């Protein structure tokens, strides 16, 4: 019977085209929206992970308590030994030392006097060891607006807006005024080698980036780092894997009263990111639920309309002796086939469109110029396993339920009146 129904669907375009098109559109929109929300969530998480939070962050207990103040006097020391152990015990993760610091950038005039000065948020990251991981995480090559990336010690990158505010160009010397790990005031000269645009408001307003060793020299932090950030190998934040890591880390470094002992903080536990993730997931889930529900209603309605549109056909079939239940079951089978065909096509189109957007993204930077929170400006979709079946909920089930409800009317038809109906 299925083969018969399938032939009917394929050959009788008048009967099948409209329902299939409606299912395709509904399923496509469901899959695309789902992947979009997933992508926005993932982009926000990854942006925070790359620039700041890592998937996990190792700090001293005291640093973790006051992390908002960037307290480098409480930084990790003996970092080389700690890193060797982390790399040995957790080979599935990649690690990077960082110093996050605040200070003033002072631009001198030709007499060496202060010409312009502004507060800066700085990062000391590995730029010169030959390992390009941090350069890629900070997306420095694509972010470069003027000049070049640091090639030598003593060079610094400035956010483009900040450099223009201080009227500083690549090649100029600026002085970092900050505080050493011991709390002394420190001054350190850098040559600006390039300017960058991150595409995120807070980072673009006053950031500087220099090689980790240069910042160590400036802040008197020999073999010390404020933070060691860790990333899962596939760069995708997986809460289950992170949970397993935390348990193993706690085994290696049990809770201690030493406030300078290393502690681990997950991405979820930083900067209210856990709350943000839950809220976005909740809102995203709710939006998808509402959308799936509304698409279900549309497709249900389409199923109902399809049943009603074919009212005379069912009367004729009853009149020539076809059984009620046979007509009803054939309707259901037919709607299952339409649902499957529409869902497969709709899901495929939705996935293809999402795949394109996953690679190319949608640049909304012009709409987010004044953003003050760390949010991505180029949004990508993200295809997850759920995206492969979520479209079948409205596409298949709603179509079938709609058809099943409309088909109940068949049983109310009276054979004696069928010919009168047909004559009419």
């Amino acid at each position, binding site marked *: 019977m299925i083969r018969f129904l399938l032939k009917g669907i394929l050959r009788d375009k008048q009967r099948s085209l409209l329902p299939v098109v409606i299912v395709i559109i509904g399923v496509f929109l469901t899959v695309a929206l789902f992947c979009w929300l997933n992508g926005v969530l993932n982009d926000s998480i990854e942006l925070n992970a790359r620039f700041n939070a890592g998937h996990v962050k190792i700090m001293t207990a005291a640093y973790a308590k006051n992390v908002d103040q960037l307290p480098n*006097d409480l930084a990790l*020391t003996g970092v080389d030994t700690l890193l060797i152990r982390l790399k040995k015990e957790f080979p599935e993760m990649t690690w990077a030392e960082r110093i996050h610091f605040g200070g003033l950038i*002072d631009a*001198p005039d030709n007499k*060496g*006097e*202060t010409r312009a000065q502004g507060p800066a948020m700085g990062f000391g990251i590995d730029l010169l060891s030959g390992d390009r991981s941090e350069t890629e995480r900070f997306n420095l090559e694509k972010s470069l607006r003027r000049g070049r990336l640091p090639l030598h010690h003593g060079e610094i990158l400035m956010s483009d807006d900040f450099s223009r505010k201080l009227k500083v160009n690549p090649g100029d010397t600026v*002085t970092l*005024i900050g*505080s*050493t790990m*011991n*709390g*002394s*005031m*420190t*001054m*350190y*000269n850098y040559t600006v080698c390039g300017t960058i645009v991150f595409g995120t408001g807070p980072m673009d307003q006053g950031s500087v980036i220099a090689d980790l060793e240069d910042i160590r020299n400036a802040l*008197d932090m020999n073999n010390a780092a404020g933070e060691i950030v860790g990333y899962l190998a596939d760069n995708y934040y997986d809460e289950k894997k992170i949970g397993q890591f935390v348990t193993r880390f706690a085994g290696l470094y049990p809770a201690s009263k030493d406030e*300078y002992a290393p502690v681990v903080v997950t991405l979820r536990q930083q900067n209210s990111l856990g709350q943000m993730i839950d809220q976005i997931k909740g809102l995203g889930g709710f939006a998808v639920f509402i959308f799936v529900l509304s698409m279900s209603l549309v497709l249900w309605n389409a199923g109902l309309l399809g049943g009603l549109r074919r009212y005379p056909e069912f009367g004729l079939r009853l009149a020539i002796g076809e059984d009620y239940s046979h007509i009803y079951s054939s309707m259901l089978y037919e709607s299952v086939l339409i649902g499957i065909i529409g869902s497969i096509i709709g899901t495929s189109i939705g996935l293809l469109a999402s795949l394109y957007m996953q690679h190319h993204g949608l640049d909304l930077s012009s709409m987010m110029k004044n953003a003050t929170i760390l949010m991505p400006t180029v949004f990508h979709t993200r295809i997850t396993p759920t995206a492969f079946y979520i479209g079948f909920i409205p596409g298949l089930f709603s179509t079938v339920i709609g058809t099943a409800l409309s088909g109940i009317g068949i049983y109310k038809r009276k054979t004696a009146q069928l010919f009168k109906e047909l004559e009419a």
Partner: protein
Amino acid sequence: MRKLVFPFLLMCISINAQNPSAKEIIEKVDKNMSADSRVFTSKMIIHNPRNTRTVESKSWSIGEKKSYTEYLSPAREQGTKMLKLEDQLWIFSPSTDRIIQISGHMLRQSVMGSDLSYEDMMEDPHLLNHYSGKVDGEEKIAERNCWVISLTANTPEVAYQVQKVWVDKDRFIPLKKELYAKSGLLLKKLELSDVLQIQGRWFPKKMLFKDVLKEGDGTEFDIQDIEFNVKIPDYIFSKASLKK
């Protein structure tokens, strides 16, 4: 009746003679602690929670307005110079060959991570010029009898609006100080010891500063040698001398 009044007045005068007023005490403290000019070398031993560092410096000052300090060690700080004129401070860093000016609240930041602020380190204020006081009582500090005096600032510019000072009754040297903000919040504690007679005045060679808002065991400020009322050339207090 007349026979009773005279001894009573005599008693009052004698009590007054034994108990000098707060102003008189502060005047005597200022005579010991402050000078028209002074030159001293000092060793600052900073007890941070994670380490102890020693910073040596030489300072020149004239009154309350002009002060100049050059750091002698450790190597990282050697050659750093600070010039303070009124409420402006210039710092020269030899590694950058730059002079940076700081002012305002920055002057209340810690010097070299110690418990002293730039103002603590570089100012030599006459207490009487900035505070009015009252004697709260008497206490013993390090087995010495002291007056306990509360000082309240007359001007809003001073860093510590209220001070509680324990002054040695015999030598008129503060042996202990508590420094408060206007809100009444205790900011710093100071213990002064090793009181020696130098150029006819008593002076404490050791001071232990403790910033109570900061972790650590405080900063010892040891005066290695000090000269009062010496002639200091004017060029010392110029920006040009910072780069010399």
